């Protein structure tokens, strides 16, 4: 048995090594973003160097970071809200009123997500052009929410199924309608799970690159487009690319870190027995 107060150093060292190893690539990128272009490719790698902000200056001067960031925020929040609005009723109905086809529907929903986006790019491009949705925030929200929808439905379905049916039945005995039952009983019960799903969806939408690169130009372009404009230009680009990448992942990384408690609490599948 473990004695209380004893610090387990050997364990701490192992976990710290693992943690630093996992984080190292990000740290390395952060360091590179403060080097000059020539120092960034130096061998042996420079650990001690004069930090410079010139890459950030160059990057911010070239592109309107805030406009890209605003679109990223709008798109990831908007798509998440839309996806939740569509998914909550569906997951509710599948979890509590399953029919013989429920599993097929679930399976089919998941399979829609497995179609490589590039396979439908031309059809979607033609549709979006005809609907006037090219380069609009709404157009991007629409497509992003549809691409996360299967995952959101599936996760909510898993959470809802863990709610004992007895609880809902009790409220129904009290004469609650289905909508009331959903809003007043189920949602409060599953709040951590819904929050975790929403957080996951926000992260996935923030990092979505394919559609935002292909369906937007100026007005709705997100941070993934911002990063793309700094990848593989001519000449030495490591440092500037690092700066641009740091700028585009910083918001979501901080957001993720701040919300990880909610996420961890909500994502506990199998917690309810």
């Amino acid at each position: 048995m473990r004695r209380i107060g004893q610090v387990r150093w050997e364990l701490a060292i192992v976990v710290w090594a693992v943690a630093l190893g996992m984080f190292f690539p990000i740290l390395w990128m952060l360091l590179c973003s403060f080097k000059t272009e020539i120092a960034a490719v130096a061998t042996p790698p420079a650990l001690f160097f004069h930090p410079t902000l010139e890459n950030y200056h160059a990057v911010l001067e070239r592109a309107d970071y805030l406009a890209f960031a605003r679109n990223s925020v709008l798109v990831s929040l908007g798509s998440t809200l839309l996806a939740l609005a569509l998914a909550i009723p569906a997951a509710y109905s599948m979890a509590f009123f399953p029919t013989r086809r429920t599993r097929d529907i679930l399976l089919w929903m998941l399979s829609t997500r497995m179609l490589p986006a590039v396979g439908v790019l031309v059809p979607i491009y033609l549709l979006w052009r005809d609907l006037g949705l090219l380069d609009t925030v709404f157009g991007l929200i629409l497509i992003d929410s549809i691409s996360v929808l299967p995952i959101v439905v599936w996760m909510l379905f898993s959470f809802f199924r863990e709610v004992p049916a007895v609880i809902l039945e009790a409220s129904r005995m009290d004469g609650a309608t289905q909508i009331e039952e959903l809003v007043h009983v189920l949602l409060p019960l599953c709040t951590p799970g819904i929050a975790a799903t929403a957080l996951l969806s926000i992260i996935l939408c923030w990092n979505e690159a394919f559609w935002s690169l292909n369906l937007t130009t100026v007005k709705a372009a997100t941070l993934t487009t911002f990063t793309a404009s700094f990848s593989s230009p001519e000449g030495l680009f490591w440092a500037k690319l690092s700066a641009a990448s740091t700028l585009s992942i910083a918001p979501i990384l901080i957001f993720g870190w701040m919300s990880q408690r909610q996420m961890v609490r909500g994502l506990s599948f199998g917690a309810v027995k």
Partner: protein
Amino acid sequence: MTGEVASKPTRHLHRPLLAPSVGALFLWMAVPLAMTLWFSAEHYNLLRPGKTAFAGWENYRDLLTHRALWIAMGNTLFLVGLVLAITLIFGTLFSLLLNQDFPGRNVCRLLIIAPFFVMPTVSALIWKNMLMNPVFGLFAWITRSLGFGTIEFFSRMPMLSIVLIVGWEWTPFAVLILLPALHSLNPEQIEAARLDGGGPIALFRYIQLPHLLRPMAVVAMIEMIFFLSLFAEIYVATGGGPGLASTNLAYLIFRDALLGFDVGRASAGGVIAIILANIVCFFLMRVVGRNLEDLR
């Protein structure tokens, strides 16, 4: 067990609730899919407009008789299987570690989950240019300093390099789901096992692992969705090469659609990808689905 809840009068209401979601997905699937099916039966190249003509099965025949499709399918399955295994094994391992008590545990957790928040293109760029580059990269410098020479990641082991990058990105996701599941394990159960004299291995084998099976199924399902259509990492890191060594189905379709602008053949590839996804999904659902039923 859930089915009995629905009493007759309310049953009809579930349709309107299901409708928006199914409808949206159906539109998403049906309209582009119909267009994809249509294009897949045509000679349609963006660079030769006005020369569209009915092709019948020709695009499919072209694809199915070409070795690229089979190599790509093999690569797709290899990638899904290996990365799933890696993320689940390391995810479990890291979760077990993080579940212990030691100084700085919260910071470690933050550091370990961080890779999941990084955009796939960015992480591929970091790995390719700053770590695995055989001349400037940090790994090359380390191996050279140790006298092992240079590892040419992308020429010698392109698939494993991709697996490494994707595994790094998605192991944190497994931790995110498995760690809370471990937390939720009843402490009395663990204490009881310990009093019975079971070592940590027995504890893991008989108490923790069974408890983790369901969250693992969730991880596997969600990750599989992403890995089957994995694209950004391959596009950035290897461009599907050398040869076809790291080309998966998504990349193969990309090659037809956006390097050759052959919409007809790319659409046929898309249709084949959906069919493959459904087959894989069907088998996985049987495994996962049974798991879900058993545990309820």
